[in-house]
């Protein structure tokens, strides 16, 4: 446990280096304003990382999270707003839009779980298909258009300030704390490690494997919907590309943060450091204004370096 906890922190030196390098490269970098921006910008995607980390630790996979980020809030909004604004014209009360969005996220997660657990289908491909389908459920009803007349309630969380900090940062912070605690100190949380480490052994130990896995998928979908709500508030509208392309970064953050793609290994704290590294790298590249053409090379290169550092500091082969 002591060793494991230490291994969570292999990216801390990377973060320190990034902070020093960033401060050196641009005077704006270390200002509270800029660092707050970094956190706010990462808040939504960090919830996906949190979700994916739990799913990966339990030995599964969910690619469809990125599509839920756009679709869950969009459908919820369309249930509420009038036809003229792009809605279905059902006109449900605006206060319900957040619960709806979360419910839709949960339902997508449950459906993923159903296919994967009940039919024993490959999680990778089920959720790949679901990534496409769920995105279709944004593009289809909106016919590709952006929803920008949104009820106030869905904008609040992503744009409010609480005690001078964006609410999104507080929310992500609290959920990560809950995740760290839950996976570190609750039996249910620990059971994810057992399931991901050796499903048969977990089952033999009396863990209700299927039920826990359903819970994990549902939680994943719900967190993705919440991420979508935060992102909606930050951007002020729901475009057809909301969340599209995030999933790769989500995996990168989780894995450089020490979560194994093979299940059973990694921590939420580690995943959090992964998110921070990615956020800081993006911010520094933006500040110094690297040419857009070469940005991918530098960006990918930094991911590789972070991966190597986490490998060397972690000491174990990755899978």
């Amino acid at each position, binding site marked *: 446990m002591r060793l494991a906890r230490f291994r969570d922190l292999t990216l801390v030196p990377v973060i320190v280096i990034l902070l020093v390098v960033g401060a050196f490269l*641009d005077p*704006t970098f270390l*200002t509270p*304003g*800029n660092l707050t*921006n970094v956190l706010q*910008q990462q808040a939504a995607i960090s919830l996906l990382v949190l979700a994916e980390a739990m799913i990966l630790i339990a030995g599964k996979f969910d690619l469809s999270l990125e599509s839920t980020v756009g679709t869950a809030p969009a459908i919820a909004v369309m249930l509420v707003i009038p036809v003229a604004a792009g809605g279905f014209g059902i006109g449900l009360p605006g206060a319900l839009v957040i619960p709806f969005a979360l419910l839709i996220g949960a339902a997508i997660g449950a459906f993923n779980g159903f296919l994967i657990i009940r039919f024993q289908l490959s999680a990778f491909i089920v959720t790949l298909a679901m990534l496409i389908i769920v995105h279709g459920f944004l*593009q289809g009803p909106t*016919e*590709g*258009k*952006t*929803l*920008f007349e949104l009820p106030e309630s869905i*904008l609040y969380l992503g*744009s409010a300030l609480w005690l001078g900090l964006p609410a999104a940062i507080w929310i992500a912070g609290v959920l990560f704390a809950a995740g760290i605690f839950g996976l570190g100190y609750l039996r249910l949380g620990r059971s994810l490690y057992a399931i991901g480490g050796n499903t048969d052994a977990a089952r033999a130990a009396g863990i209700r494997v299927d039920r826990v896995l359903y819970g994990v998928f549902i939680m994943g979908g719900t967190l993705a919907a919440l991420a979508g709500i935060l*992102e909606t*508030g*930050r*951007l*002020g*509208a*729901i*475009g*057809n*590309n*909301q969340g599209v*392309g995030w999933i790769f970064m989500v995996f990168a953050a989780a894995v450089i943060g020490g979560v194994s793609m093979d299940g059973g290994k990694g921590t939420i704290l580690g995943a959090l450091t992964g998110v921070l590294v990615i956020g800081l790298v*993006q*911010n520094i590249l*933006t*500040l*110094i*204004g690297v*040419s*857009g*053409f070469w*940005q991918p090379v530098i960006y990918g290169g930094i991911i590789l370096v972070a991966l190597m550092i986490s490998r060397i500091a972690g000491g174990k082969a990755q899978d």
Partner: protein
Amino acid sequence: SGTTTTEGGSGGGKIGIDHPRADSDFWNSYIKYVPQMAGELKVDLMPATNSQNDVAKLVNNVQALTGQGAKVIVMAPQDTGAIANTLTQLENKKIPVVTVDTRPDKGKVYMVVRADNRAYGTKACEFLGEKLGGKGKVVQLQGALSSINGRDRSEAFLECMKSKFPGVTVFSEPTEWEGSKAASMLQTRLEQNPDIKGIYMHAGGVHLAPTLQVLKQKGLLVPPSDDKHVFVISNDGIPQEFEAIRKGDIDATVSQPADLYAKYALFYAKAAAEGKTFQAGPTDHDSTIIQLPNGLEDQLPAPLVTKENVDDKALWGNQVK
């Protein structure tokens, strides 16, 4: 009239600019024009950021640019809705915004610099409709349905066909701005309807080469005099499209003015920094400024290029080295 009023001398200030993508010919030309025009207009330009087609990144970039002291922002949001909050925030910070290529749905803009994308679709429809004599089958290779430009071109094309050339059947293929999809869909459609006589490509940069390959493979790459000729109209106005027009491989394109986009984006940005204001009306550069609910839009000319005018030196596609 679209004249300028100077308010209290030259203010000036740093101008932040974000490029929308680095992987398309049209934008690539635009990106190249930006520093050149900045030199000509003596604009204090900050290093450009690039949001790689992702509006969330665009928002982050804008935050960074303002953090670094940008006084005016130039951007080209490919998602015109999701930029609303950012525009409001910039308005609160009193930072004027010039958008290029797209018109935000909501939120204050100082000036929109774009050509009318619906007009592209209409021009293409009229060109093909006339060439085909108001009957027959045409294919439009659409961009991405989630992009405003793709949708504008597509909708205007369809509406125009419906009202002006009801005898023409249109097949719409969603290519996501991808050459590979365009080639496969066009090939399949031609197999199914060998009598297709017209093609409208939403973006020459990605659609031109694949379309020509498919036509060549089918033996349809023949001069207009030949009965088998398929009329092709493209969009963007890159040099390769001009080349194809000269060779008779395609028949026309709409030149989307990459140079003017860059020039007037910076022109208005500089004007904004200096505190100038504009009104709706015709301008001194062959365009019209129109009033939007949330600002102004300078609708730059986007000429139709055919064999007749393809060698016109004024076309930006003829100036690229």
